[in-house]
């Protein structure tokens, strides 16, 4: 049975209170009857992450069910997904669901963090039109050239090189 500490225990039984918190949860009944708990920060982060992504998952699932690509306004804080298409979005919803189940079972944020990071990276790579064209195209051997290890030779056009790629070749 969990111990319920009193406000005065924060002085008299401080070590015992902290040990309970470190072990997962320490409950304290304040003088006005309010129930307070102290938990490890990692556990709080996990709970917040599960709550946030479970809510966003439900919303996204509903948007995808409409069968059309949601607008940026619909996506709200998930507007970074705008570079994806509806099929990608469906795949994200499925993977997010799986990550939520694993994160919940493992009591860890890692599956969610990894899932969201990979999809964010993908969306960012697809934002640029040239990268998008190459990443979503098929393999054509004529598009590629063999190269050796990188050298330190500086091209005179360095300053004019666009960040995304060269689109005029």
């Amino acid at each position, binding site marked *: 049975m969990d111990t319920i500490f009193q406000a005065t225990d924060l002085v008299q039984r401080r070590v015992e209170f902290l040990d309970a918190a470190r072990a997962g949860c320490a409950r304290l009944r304040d003088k006005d009857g309010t129930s307070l708990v102290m938990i490890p920060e990692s556990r709080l982060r996990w709970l917040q992450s599960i709550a946030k992504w479970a809510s966003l998952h439900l919303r996204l699932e509903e948007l995808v069910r409409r069968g059309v690509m949601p607008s940026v306004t619909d996506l709200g804080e998930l507007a970074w997904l705008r570079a994806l298409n509806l099929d*990608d979005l469906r795949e*994200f919803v499925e993977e997010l669901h799986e990550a939520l189940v694993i994160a919940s079972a493992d009591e860890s944020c890692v599956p969610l963090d990894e899932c969201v990071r990979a999809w964010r990276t993908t969306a960012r790579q697809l934002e640029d039109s040239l990268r998008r064209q190459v990443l979503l195209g098929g393999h054509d051997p004529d598009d590629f050239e063999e190269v050796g290890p990188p050298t*330190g030779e500086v091209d005179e056009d360095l300053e004019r090189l666009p960040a995304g790629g060269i689109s005029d070749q």
Partner: protein
Amino acid sequence: MTNSAYDPLRPARRPGGKPEARPVYRVLVHKRFKRHYEQLVARVGAPQAQQFWDHISTNPGEPSPVAATCILRGRAGRPQDEGWSRTYHYEITSMARADYQFNDQYKTATDGDPHPVVAILTIDYSSH
């Protein structure tokens, strides 16, 4: 002779020495990003450029001890043709990233010898 090096019960050594533990990948770069590749050392510095090269030419697809990597998701992560891996994203530095796929049995012609290659699809130097 009592001190001969010849031991009739000991097998001869393998011709050519020990096989290499890992294949070495030939590296291809998409022509649209060839100039970006040529700027790699100038953009990120020789050590990071070399680490990227070492990674893709020896063990593409494996986690890097020095750089963040992940597999792209959705359509962008799918193999571009039969035999190719999914698309790997490698963060060379905070200002430089590359996407690549690899193929352990790549053939340039139908009757050609299969050999391992890495294809660098994109390189970008934008900041996040």
